[in-house]
């Protein structure tokens, strides 16, 4: 049932397949997915919303229902109107339930369509069903990485990892605070600290990370010479010394 829905959505909404990693070192690329518990978390959120919607519909319908009840008890011409009201109210409730069921399927699809790709020098986060977003950020531009976890997320062992780049102070004024382009979310991962460590490890190799100076990179690049090269150099040095000494003795003998 869900699979049929997913295939239909993939076709109708033209949801692109799994994102490819940005060009670079393929061997170091790692792809993370949202944890299965994130689906449970989304389900919990969905259940709360659905309960809210159903309660709202019922609260809205109580008045008209009582009216319809009175209409029935009066009988005659009024009961016809009461029946119409009942049908309308029933339709409203059913429509709400159908919409919530659709939302449930979308929740599942949204959970499925999440990819967090980390390469040797950048990350790519793909999310979304109707609006597909794919963010690409190089590690050199990352300002800070933070992990946040609410009580329900803690119980489920998942967390949200947030990556910030420079700028983006005006997030609150925007119509969608969620769509601040300077922050990238790894939502619902169960290995947030592992991802953080991986990113920090790769970040540490970049001396100009954040808004650091590019000059620092050149200064820190002290080349390390291998043991073979050093040994060969020492031999050359010894040979040169011996040559000088021999030459010195010869000139002494001549004079």
């Amino acid at each position, binding site marked *: 049932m869900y699979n049929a829905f997913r295939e239909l959505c993939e076709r109708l909404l033209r949801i692109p397949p799994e994102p490819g990693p940005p060009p670079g070192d393929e061997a170091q690329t790692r792809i993370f997915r949202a944890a299965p518990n994130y689906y449970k978390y989304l389900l919990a959120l969905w259940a709360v919303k659905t309960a809210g919607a159903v309660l709202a519909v019922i609260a809205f319908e109580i008045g008209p229902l009582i009216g319809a009840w009175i209409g029935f008890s009066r009988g005659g011409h009024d009961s016809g109107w009461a029946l119409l009201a009942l049908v309308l109210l029933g339709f409203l409730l059913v429509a709400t339930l159908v919409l919530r069921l659709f939302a449930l399927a979308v929740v599942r699809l949204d959970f499925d369509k999440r990819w967090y790709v980390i390469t040797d020098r950048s990350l790519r986060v793909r999310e979304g069903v109707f609006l597909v977003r794919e963010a690409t950020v190089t590690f050199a531009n990352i300002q800070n990485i933070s992990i946040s976890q609410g009580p329900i997320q803690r119980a489920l062992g998942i967390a949200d990892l947030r990556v910030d780049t420079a700028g983006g102070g005006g997030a609150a004024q925007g119509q969608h605070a969620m769509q601040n382009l*300077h922050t990238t979310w790894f939502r619902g991962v169960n290995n947030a600290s592992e991802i953080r460590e991986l990113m920090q490890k790769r970040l540490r190799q970049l001396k100009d990370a954040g808004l650091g100076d590019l000059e620092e990179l050149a200064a820190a690049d002290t080349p390390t010479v291998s043991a073979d090269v050093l040994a060969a150099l020492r031999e050359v040095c010894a040979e040169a010394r011996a040559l000088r000494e021999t030459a010195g003795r010869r000139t002494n003998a001549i004079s």
Partner: protein
Amino acid sequence: MTMHTDPVTEKVFALERPHPSLWRYYIIHALLTGPALIGTLPYYFFRYHTLRYRFDEEGIHMKVGILFRKEINLTYARIQDIHLKSGFVQRWLGLANLEIQTASGSATAELVIEGFKEYELIRDFLYTRMRGYRAGNAGRPATAQLAGGSPEMISLLQEIRDELRRTRESLAGAPPAQPPSHHV
């Protein structure tokens, strides 16, 4: 301009006008605004017809507008994030928005590249030129190569050593040369 022979760069440099699908997308977008169509459709019409992009060695340049003109210039090296966004109508038309971010204060994109079917190509092109790509690329392999020690370097050093050794041996073994100028 014979510097870039790589086909991706040439393709991206050749881009200028958005694809006609963008106009179709704008029509759909305008229709969705309902009665406001009277205002939005002409706006989109002029936007579509005046929208120009230019990609060169340094950065992206965008020009748009007929009454109120806007021109955005952005250097590749200042690009922080690249976002690829597409609604399902755009995906049906084969389009997507590329939103380019720099470190400036706004939460929205500094520059939006819209209306190109080659969005993946443009994204990869920008990725290889954005801030942080080269630093990670150029810094590492160079040191790794040195640390490994190039075999050529070692053999060269050994050759020098042998050369020196032979010089010393010839100096030590041969009878002392009598420079003619010595007895004058």
